[in-house]
């Protein structure tokens, strides 16, 4: 009789643990994993394009980064952005960031022509 009870408690414990594990796994599998990379990418491309089209990027290349700084600071507070510009030989000529160095980021690139010179712009974007 006692052996029977001990066996039942054992099985109950095993079943509870098994059920809890299965429930945890099923909930983990069905938890939404929102794909935010697309939005980050679009955000980076937007900022790079607007900086180019408004002339803020050209001004920054000329030494006046007031407009570019204002533009970067007016974007989403939850998002960090690092905007870099490289000349035709691949040397970095501009580097503006709203946060520290990223560990995991999404990047967008854009070809830029300013005063007849060719540049490549790169916006690296990540969540703060």
């Amino acid at each position, binding site marked *: *009789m006692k052996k*029977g009870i001990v066996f*039942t408690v054992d099985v*109950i414990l095993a*079943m509870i643990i098994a*059920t809890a594990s*299965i*429930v945890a796994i*099923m*909930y983990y*599998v*069905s*938890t*939404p994993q*929102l*794909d935010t990379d*697309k*939005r980050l990418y*679009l*955000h980076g*491309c*937007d*900022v790079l*394009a*607007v900086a180019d*089209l*408004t*002339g*803020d990027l050209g001004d920054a290349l000329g030494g006046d980064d007031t407009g570019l700084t204002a*533009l970067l*600071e*007016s*974007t*989403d507070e939850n998002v960090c952005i690092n905007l870099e510009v490289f000349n035709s030989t691949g040397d970095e000529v501009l580097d503006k960031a709203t946060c520290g160095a990223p560990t995991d980021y999404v990047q967008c690139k854009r070809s830029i022509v300013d005063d007849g010179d060719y540049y490549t712009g790169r916006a690296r974007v990540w969540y703060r």
Partner: protein
Amino acid sequence: MVFTLDMIVSVVFFMAIVLTMLWVWTASYMHMEQYNDLSARSSRLDDIGTMLVTTGGSPSDWHQGGPFNADRILALGLARGGNELDPERLDRFVSLDYELLRRLLGLGSEDFHFTVTRDWEGTPDILYEKGSAKATSEVYVVRRFAALDGEAVELRLAAYYDKR
């Protein structure tokens, strides 16, 4: 007697496990359904934002001419180039009927609020607006940045709907 009690306990426990599993399965399935719905709506709004900000629409002269013919419109776009908004297209866009715009944007049953704002972080200056904010259980927002007449502006499109 002992065997019977043992069996009854076992059957009850087994049934409890099976019912729990069914409940968890149903809850997970509904969870996934809601997520798929959320994901589809969010993705669609992203695509609409991209369509508006980076294209001129199809046909590209949809904003020109006299009376508006919705039948020839394949897609709406507000840009004269990538991320460069066109004031003429914006003027025509906000002059159109709200219900027609909702259909052309592919929003289905969702209400929308469209704004183009200058100085959005300081003293917001709404340059173009269509629709209004609604009190619904769900709202999705897409924010895009573009240039308008050489100035940076924020295009914001919010879609509102009530969860089923």
